[in-house]
Structures are given as structure tokens and as C-alpha cells.
């Protein structure tokens, strides 16, 4: 052991007060900054607790209880409207179908996301082929004796999850094809893919949604009508595919040349080379990037409000603006807080998951 290594760098056994002093009050200037920040935190926490708990209204059957000048958060607005926020106008007697769909999704997703669970391929096939069919039959009905529930009745969190998951599932294969096409040796294929990707990435999602909602019906033969939800889904999937393609292209570029050449040497054709050798490695590398794209897609689903679909944010906004029964100065803040909390939990969980995958990949690279 050299003398260098014996110098204690951080003494874990130091007393708590000393550690706090070192972290927060090392110099006069730092102490002033710390004090300012402490008072800021104190103020924010106090204001929030005061609003959400102390001055909050917890029971009542309409907005009149929340109209008192000193009232804080209007929680009965959330509890009374919970059904609408979660399921939209989905008929109450049929809500078990939505919940069953959630259970089926969780049954497939949980083992898929946990590391170490075997048969990932089988599970992926279930999630990509069996589950969507089951979910469609369950949610929409009109088959197997289930009464039909039109998509115009879907709303709230249900619609958010439907748009996000269909958007993800549909844009993923398109994204892979676009990424492959952009790296193709065939110039026309490459130009077409590059043009599409750059065009879509250069415009806001709002304009793509407008296009899907207004122009898509014009593109189709005059006698074909297309469901409003389906239009939004087409718009979201086409938009998201361009972003996914760029993420996947990054993965394709990171695969060493030798892998391509080895596949060629084995006599594999283009599709088998890509499907069996290159893509499995490329997609594994970019999983964190893909999850990040999914988080943006999930947040972006709220934009369907602009073309008249009511996802979670849309339906909260509608209840805040248009429900005279619950009108009060605190209704908007409470509703937004609820919607924000739900979105935050979903997105934060996904970003944590992505970060843990990233760490795992990094470790694998080092060992």
C-alpha cells in the first residue's frame, strides 16, 4: 500500500452536522446561496401543503364548496369525475372490458420488462400480435356477443393509453423500415426515406395531426369514411416513425462493419442479414433511446385535443372549462394537478426504466 491510498478521501463516519456543514455552508458565499435556496424550498413546500391539504376542500357534491375565497384544492371535483377522467364516456356497465384489457397488457408487459425472465420472444409475439387483437375486440366489441362501444365514446386515460400504445406499436415497424431504407445502397430508396424523415421532423406534430384530420379523408376515395380516432392514430404513427427511424439508424451505424461482412460471408441475403444479425444487435443498443422516444410520444398524445379528441388532458380541460356544476376558482388548478400527476408518474417510471437499461448496457460493454 502506498501512502497515497491511505489518505481518507471521504470519511463516512463523520458526524451528520459536519457533513451538512461541508455540503451546504463551506464558505460565506455558499452559505448565503444555501440559505436563499432553503427559504425558497420552504416557501414552495409550505405553499403546496397549504393549498393541497390545509385549505383544501375534501368533500362536497358540487363546486359551491370550492367557491369560498379561502378554499384551496377542490378534491371532490377529482373524486366525482374520476370515472370520466379514466374512461371518458365509456358505458359504465362495460368498464370491466377496459380493466380486463389493462390486466392482459400488464400480464404481457411485466415479464417482458423484467430482466432474467425467459421466453422474451414468445412474450413479444403475444404483445405484438395476440394482445392487440384481443384488446381491439374487448374495447370496441361488436363481436362475440360484446356490445359495440364506438370510439367516439372512448376518452380520458383510456384514450391516452390507446393512442400511445397503438402509436408505438405501429410506428416501430415503419421506423425500422425507414431506417433500413435510409442506409440502403439503392439511391432511390435512400432518397425517398431521407426525404420523408427530414420532412416529418421539420414540421410540428400539430400540423401533422391537422393534416391527418383534414386531408386524410380527402385522399381516400369519396365513399370511404374514416374514424376520427383512426385518423389521429395514422398521424401519430407516421410522425413518430420518422423519429424512431433516426434512433434505430444510430444503432445500425454503431454495429461494426465486420458483422455485416460476416453475414455476407455466410451467404445470408439482405433480409436475413438484417433480421438475424444486424437488427437484433442494433435495437438492443438503442433501447434507451427508444424508451425516450416513447416518453415523448406518450406526452405528445395530449395534442389530439387540438383535433377534437378528449384524452386525459383534453377531458380534464373540458370538465374545467365547460362543467358549470363544478365551476370554481380552484377547479382548473386541481384538475391540472391531477392530470399532471398521472402523466408524471407514467413518464418518470419510463425514464427510470430507460436509465436502468442504459446502466445495464454500459456495464455489459465494460465486462
Amino acid at each position, binding site marked *: 500500500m502506498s501512502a497515497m491510498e491511505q489518505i481518507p478521501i471521504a470519511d463516512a463516519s463523520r458526524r451528520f452536522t459536519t457533513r451538512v456543514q461541508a455540503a451546504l455552508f463551506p464558505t460565506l458565499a455558499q452559505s448565503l446561496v444555501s440559505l436563499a435556496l432553503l427559504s425558497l424550498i420552504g416557501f414552495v413546500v409550505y405553499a403546496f401543503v397549504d393549498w393541497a391539504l390545509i385549505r383544501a376542500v375534501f368533500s362536497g357534491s358540487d363546486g359551491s364548496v370550492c367557491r369560498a375565497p379561502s378554499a384551496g384544492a377542490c378534491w371532490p371535483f377529482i373524486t366525482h369525475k374520476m370515472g370520466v377522467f379514466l374512461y371518458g364516456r365509456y358505458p359504465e356497465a362495460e368498464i370491466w372490458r377496459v380493466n380486463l384489457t389493462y390486466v392482459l397488457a400488464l400480464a404481457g408487459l411485466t415479464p417482458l420488462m423484467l430482466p432474467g425472465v425467459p421466453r422474451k420472444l414468445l412474450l413479444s409475439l403475444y404483445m405484438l400480435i395476440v394482445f392487440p387483437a384481443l384488446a381491439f375486440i374487448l374495447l370496441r366489441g361488436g363481436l362475440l356477443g360484446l356490445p359495440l362501444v364506438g370510439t367516439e365514446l372512448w376518452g380520458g386515460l383510456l384514450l391516452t393509453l390507446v393512442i400511445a400504445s397503438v402509436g408505438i406499436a405501429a410506428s416501430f415497424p415503419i421506423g425500422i423500415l425507414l431506417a433500413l431504407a435510409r442506409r440502403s445502397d439503392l439511391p*432511390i430508396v435512400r432518397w425517398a426515406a431521407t426525404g420523408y424523415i427530414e420532412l416529418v421532423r421539420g414540421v410540428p406534430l400539430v400540423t401533422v395531426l391537422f*393534416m391527418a384530420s383534414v386531408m386524410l379523408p380527402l385522399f381516400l376515395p369519396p365513399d370511404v369514411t374514416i374514424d376520427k380516432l383512426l385518423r389521429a392514430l395514422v398521424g401519430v404513427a407516421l410522425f413518430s416513425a420518422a423519429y424512431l427511424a433516426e434512433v434505430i439508424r444510430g444503432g445500425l451505424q454503431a454495429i461494426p462493419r465486420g458483422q455485416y461482412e460476416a453475414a455476407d460471408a455466410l451467404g445470408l441475403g439482405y433480409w436475413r442479414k438484417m433480421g438475424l444479425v444486424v437488427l437484433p444487435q442494433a435495437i438492443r443498443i438503442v433501447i434507451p433511446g427508444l424508451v425516450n422516444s416513447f416518453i415523448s410520444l406518450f406526452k405528445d398524445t395530449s395534442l389530439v385535443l387540438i383535433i377534437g379528441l378528449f384524452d386525459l*388532458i383534453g377531458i380534464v380541460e373540458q370538465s374545467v372549462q365547460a362543467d358549470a356544476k363544478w365551476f370554481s376558482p380552484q377547479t382548473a*388548478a386541481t384538475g391540472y394537478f391531477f392530470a399532471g400527476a398521472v402523466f*408524471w408518474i407514467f413518464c418518470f417510471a419510463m425514464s427510470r426504466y430507460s436509465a436502468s437499461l442504459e446502466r445495464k448496457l454500459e456495464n455489459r460493454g465494460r465486462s
Partner: protein
Amino acid sequence: MNNDRAKRWLEPKTWAEAAYDPQVRAVVFQSLLVIVLLIAATEIVLNTAANLKKQNITSGFEFLSRTAGFDVSQSLIPYSSKSSYAGALLVGLTNTLLVAALGIVIATVLGFAIGIARLSPNWLASKLALSYVELVRNVPLLLQLLVWYVAVLRAFPPPAEALGLPLGAHLDKRGLHLPQLTFEHGGGALLLSILGAIAAAWFLTRLARQDRDGAWKHSSFIAAAWALVGIVPFLALLYAAAYVSVAYPTLGRFNFEGGLSIEPEFLALLIGLSTYTAAFISEIVRAGLLGVPRGQREAAAALGLTRRQALRLVILPQAMRIITPPLTNQYLNLTKNSSLAVAIGYPDLVSVFSGTVLNQTGQAVEVILITMAVYLAISLATALFMNRFNARTAWAER
């Protein structure tokens, strides 16, 4: 080589041979793609034409010169309901550019501050910055805009009970009312002196920078040069004081009158866009600062630079090379996200043109194509500008 290729191409082959020839395959495959794309395009054009005919909509861009007939709440250029649809397009475009440009400036300043705070030795500062980023990044921008607009700015008291701010400004539910400076006869001189002082300071700074080892290189010299920017216009102001008048917003019968009023829609969009983008920029700045090798920080410390000097003179300039490309993406995102203005009624390009004009004229195809083309042009121009900036900061690569 080429000759060989041509010969191989011309040689007679069996069908099986041809089917496995990569060149033949390339030609066939791409021809098929072109044919499929052409068929799809023709189908779309024919269907659209048929649908438009059925709805009695004449296509074309003549509608742009027709009278718009609607008012817009905020406009940088002269516009009235008698202006044309093309005028409305311009108003929307300038409003989008205004909020995007201001948003980019604020988001950059805020994002750099938060990104640097993330790496602060002060535990509270770094954790507070982390909480900000995690809170803001994981909530949809649309919701944040609604919060700023409906729950914060529209929740302010009516004009009669407006919140008084320093310098005679007022904040109420109709927006922010600021005192406005009006330059009369001496105004031009004042503006000229400001511009002249900035030009002089910029020139002196360049001179000081180029003179690498001379006495000019002193940083206090640069500071003095920039002090000129403050002093010269101040002297000019003293001279012209008689000609500059300040119009304070005063409470009229229903609303504030005089001064400069900023609409709450604009404020909400600006605050929402810049605070949201700042969270993403701060992560980029943090990654950029961490990307500078440790040795650079240690070398700066060994030279006796303080932490602040090391950051400004050694770390940040090198980090900028890592930061600039993703920063460009964030600027583009902010500009594209400004289209969410339509949700809170700020008259941006989408809300004025794809919203009101589309509804009034029914020219869906033309309106949406123009909107998309404008955004594409803005994206390309920003990317071009930032690539030039990037080329300048990346020069020291060896």
C-alpha cells in the same frame, strides 16, 4: 471498369441468373418502388380532386389575396380585418417567430444556469436543479401551457385590483402592462449612439482578443470597452432627456390604458415554452460539461484560476462543441412546439392560418401545405445558422 459492367449487363443470361444478379435486382426493386409511389400519388391526387369537386371547393392559391375579415389580437405588422389572407399568414408567421426567438433566448439562459447548477458543489443547488428537470420534463407541454395560462395568468385579479410591480408596471388577468418609452426628436440620436457604442465596444474587444500577449489582452480592458455601451447612450440620454417621454399604464374605466400591454396568451406561451425547453437544455449542458476531460479542470486549477474563471475560460468553450448540435435540436423543438399556441389562443401561424383561415376558406390542402412549408423553411434556416455557428466553435479540433 464501366465497360466491363456494361458488357456484363448486355450479355445474354438465363432468367435464373438474372434473378440473382444484384444489379438487376436493384433496378427492378427501385423501379417497383417508383411505380408504387407514383400510383399512390396519382390515387391521392385523383381522390382529392374528386372530393373537392364534390364539396364545391376550387383549389388554388387565389384565396390568399381575398379579404380576411377577421381581427387578430396581437400583431407586429400593420393588420386589420380588411387585410388579405396573405396578410394573416404574415401576422401568424411573425408572431411565431417572435415567441420562438424570445423563447430561445430565455430558455438558453435558464437552461445553462440550471445545467451549471446541476454540477454545483452546493448539494441543495444541484438537487433543486435535478428536481426542476425531473418535474418539468415528465409533464406534457400542453398541460404546462394550460397551467400557466388558465391557472396562473388568468387567475390574476381584474384590472381594478391589479398587482403593482416596480417601475410602474402592473399585472392583471388581461396581461402585463409596462411603461413605454417614446422617443421624440432626440430619439434617433439616442438609438444611433447605442448602436455606435456597441459597434465600438465590439471592435475594441476583437482588437484585444487578437493581441494575444500585449497589454490589450487585459480583461478589464474588455470590460471598459463594454462600459462604453452603458455610458455613451447615458450621456446621449441626458442630452436628449427632454425628448424622451415615458407613458405609464394607467387604470381607465375598464382596463389599463397607455403604456405597452402584453397579452396573457403570449406571456403564458413564452413562459411555458422557455421553462420546458430549459429543462432539456440543462441536461445537454450538463452532459457537455461532464464531457470535458477532467484534466482540463485540474489544469485550470493548477494555473490558479478560480472555479468561475475555469468554467468561463476553460470548460465552457470546450463543452460548447459537445453542446451545440443537440442545442440546435432543442431550438428547433421550441420553434415547432410554439404551434401549441393554438390550445391557448395565441395567434401564431397554426392558430391564425391552419385554424381561422382554414375554417373560413375550406382550402385545407393549400393551407396545410403552406403551413408545413413555412415550418420546414424555419427548421432548415435554423439548422443552417447553427451549423455555421458549430463550424466556428469546433475549429480547434486537431
